[in-house]
């Protein structure tokens, strides 16, 4: 009972914070932004309470299956964003991140049936595989949010239509270098995730390669290209931002693939 109440409270806090961020993005009221951040902190605290209670009550391993991983993912994204807020003035990015968090959190909660991981799939590598991928996706989610803001801001600068939204976005330079650093952080994690995933697929011979793995490889290639072209040729700005967004979409397709597959894995 307490667990489900806490789940609802957390979801409501996330939803309210998310709508405040969106209104702030559209209308630019500074007070709304402050409340959105406060509510997000409250949501994070509620989420932490919910997660620890769940761990205590049902002994759910947060990196055991895709649903608990999603919940952990949303929590980590919010934590990373709140930490980044201490250093960068990027409050407005909350409008891009909180909908994602809410989606993950609800996605994790809607199907709470714990599915036993099939014996032939169980492996010591699995927690490592899920763990590094989650951290990687956290970095990419933040990178994609900042890339989206970059693309929007760049378009406004080019079209010379500098409306209210323009006032609130951080400078192109901040968005670009933040995006680059985040991709640089997420890439090694994704690489380890891909390697452990491959080993695991090879170990449990019953699993066939499918679209999900294809998207994982595509995401990896996309981020590799973003980094390589930036370092070697100096590609940055819009192209790098679009690459980052595409890479993140591929990573999301991988997650969706896992979610849609029956059995939760």
């Amino acid at each position, binding site marked *: 009972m307490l667990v489900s109440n806490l789940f609802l409270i957390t979801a409501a806090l996330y939803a309210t914070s998310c709508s405040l961020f969106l209104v702030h993005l559209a209308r630019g009221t500074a*007070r709304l932004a402050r409340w959105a951040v406060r509510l997000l902190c409250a949501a994070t605290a509620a989420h932490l309470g919910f997660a620890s209670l769940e761990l205590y009550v049902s002994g759910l391993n947060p990196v055991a299956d895709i649903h608990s991983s999603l919940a952990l993912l949303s929590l980590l994204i919010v934590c990373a964003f709140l930490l980044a807020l201490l250093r960068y003035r990027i409050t407005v990015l909350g409008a891009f991140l909180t909908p994602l968090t809410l989606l993950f959190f609800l996605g994790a909660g809607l199907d709470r049936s714990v599915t036993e991981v099939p014996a032939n799939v169980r492996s010591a590598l699995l927690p490592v595989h899920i763990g590094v991928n989650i951290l990687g996706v956290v970095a990419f989610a933040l990178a994609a949010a900042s890339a989206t803001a970059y693309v929007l801001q760049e378009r406004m600068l080019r079209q010379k239509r500098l409306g209210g939204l323009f006032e609130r976005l951080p400078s192109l330079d901040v968005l670009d270098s933040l995006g680059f650093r985040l991709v640089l952080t997420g890439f090694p994690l994704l690489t380890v995730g891909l390697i452990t995933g491959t080993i695991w697929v090879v170990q449990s011979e019953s699993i066939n390669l499918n679209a999900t793995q294809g998207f994982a490889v595509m995401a990896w290639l996309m981020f590799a290209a973003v980094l390589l072209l930036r370092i070697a040729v100096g590609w940055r700005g819009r192209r790098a931002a679009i690459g980052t967004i595409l890479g993140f979409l591929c990573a999301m397709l991988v997650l969706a693939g896992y979610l849609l597959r029956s059995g939760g894995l």
Partner: protein
Amino acid sequence: MVELFVVGLSHQTAPLEVRERLSIGADRLSWELERVRKVTAVREAMLISTCNRVELYATAENLYSAAEHARSYLAERAQGLFTEEMLYLKRGKEAIRHAFRVAASLDSMVVGEPQILGQFKEAFDAAEATGSIGVLLDRCITRAFSVAKKIRTETSIAAGSVNVSSIACDLARKIFGDLRGRRALLLGAGDMGEAAAKSLASTGAHLTIINRSSEKARSLAVSCGGEPKGYEQLASELVNADVVITSTSSSQHVITADLMNDVSRARRHRRLFLIDIAVPRDIDPKVSEMESVFLYDVDDLQQLAAENLAARKQAAEKAEAMVLSEVDLFEEWRQSLALTPTIVALRNQFQYVVQAELERTLPKLPELSHKQRNALHKMCEAMVNKLLHSPLTRLKDSGAHRDGARLVHATQELFELRGETGLTSSPETEVTSEESPALTTAKSGESS
């Protein structure tokens, strides 16, 4: 009754030559304030002097004599240049509205300019230091601060710059963030280009100046604090620059698409902000299609300036409405402090109790004669008067002091007079969480 008023003149009523004669330096503000208080016989006073206005905010029992004295004080300082029409006198609600509008920069020459709030604060500090701030002015001015802050955060009154140089700087900041250490290049020596380059240099950007005549480049470099370079170094400087301002008198494009193609390759896609202030234009418009290059010409910048002004005008309308509702709240508070209604209410309450008790007791004493009844009535009335004598005297005397309001409040609270003075809301209900610490202190002071 003590009334708040403002006497003064501003850019809307008086020309600069009058305003500059009247203006008072920050160092002499306290001294002048002492003088004003002596000649005008006001209770509370605050003098504010900015490039837009010279005003005296004050409270007085006899408004017209105080205002007349203030007027002759200003006339004397203006030394003959002064005419009656330049001066305005606003009282009561109008004066409060004026204070709120001035603090919120709605009455400034450039609506939304940020300096006025600081100047208002300085004037208030000076007045407070000379002990000429009492309960009314204290509340009025601190309220003006929070109204101004509220308007700044809740409307876009301060959004956007209104001159081309600062728009160029704002745009550069939007692209590069902090401009310290960035490289700006000024090409040519037009006036507008020079102004824009100066404001860029003042943000901490490193400025390089290239001109066909190296003589002119050198003299400009001295006045703007930049580094002169020869015209032949244009391509290499373009490679290094982050922001380029062009304002040459050349009739052809100085920065052609071909030149930019070469430069762009060497720049490895680093972002470049080009500002072309020259007419005819110095930069080939095709350049704007290139990746990582942002090109703004003089029309773009002026268009933005016009848009910003329009946006401020719109915001100002919203701000005016906010000021009006705040003035109403203030007026409500001020009336709640009125001494007379409180005294009347207190007396009424006592008399009501006595009357009720008499009406209850007398029927039980039918043996009393008419004379005896009258004596009883008189005795009760005398008791009420004696009991109320010292509290009422104390209340009447306190009216002039800063803690007078506290006493009135305390009386209203102790005897639950709020409904009887015709007041429905307490001043505390106006105080919201976003207010300044100063105001919160005032609030706790009132309720203690």
